[in-house]
């Protein structure tokens, strides 16, 4: 977390822009099973790369895990 207390403040501008444009495609994989779920994952993915360990880390790999 950043000094401001806002975790998104640490993200580079290009990541925020990437997330914004991905949000415009939020419903690209809308379906009757997970509804917007995969779209949310798609939109958040650029920021999740900054989790500890990067895209190979356990935090990133756990991002899409759903409890039944």
């Amino acid at each position, binding site marked *: 977390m950043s000094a401001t207390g806002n975790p998104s403040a640490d993200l580079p501008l290009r990541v925020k822009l990437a997330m914004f444009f991905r949000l415009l495609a939020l419903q*690209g994989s*809308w379906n009757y099973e997970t509804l917007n779920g995969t779209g949310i994952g798609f939109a958040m993915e650029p920021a999740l790369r900054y989790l500890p360990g990067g895209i190979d880390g356990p935090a990133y790999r756990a991002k*899409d895990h759903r409890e039944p």
Partner: protein
Amino acid sequence: MILLEALPIALLGALLGLDVVSFPQAMVSRPIVAATLAGAFIGNPPAGLTIGVVLEMIALDTLPFGASRYPEWGSAGVVGGALFAAQPHGMPGALPASMLAALLTASISGWSMVVLRRFIASRLERTRDRIEDGSRNALLSLHLSGMSVDLLRAGLVTIVAMIIFSPLVRAIVAVWGSDSAGSRAVVVVIAATVAGGALWKVFHSVAHVLWFFLAGLLVWGAMLVAR
């Protein structure tokens, strides 16, 4: 209409069909915009705008969000606009026949969206394990393929509708017996009835919206008088 003539319209229908849900929901898929753009493609934007207004009044009744099933107006607006703009000016049957073609297209295209969503769900089932294991590629692949298939779906619906309805509308217009005023009156009454029903629902479900509507009506009336 030969295939080559329908291709630019199909491309427009594909892009505007994509705008309905997948990307970017910029409201360019609303029939009033879609039909006007299609009319411009044919070389007659005022005709596209005319049928666009009629279709927009009918489209007001559907609220497209979430899991609700609704007509897909992006491709249908393009089909309606292109068909009406392609008819000779002043033909009495052009507006009702084009509107009917657009309504059928909207209904069929709406059904195709349900099929697409089931297809995405079935694809999700096959890749669920990889996605839940955190595979970036599986997630991106599912999402981008969903958008690509949606683009393809809208393009296919548009081109098939143009190929079927273009000669059909031309044939209907050629044998249409009623006069121009009567034909247009039927279309306007149908569209106004549906739009009136939509407004009635909104007036009874959203607070104070009636006053906003009346204020808008007043401003529009004043502008009309001032001209």
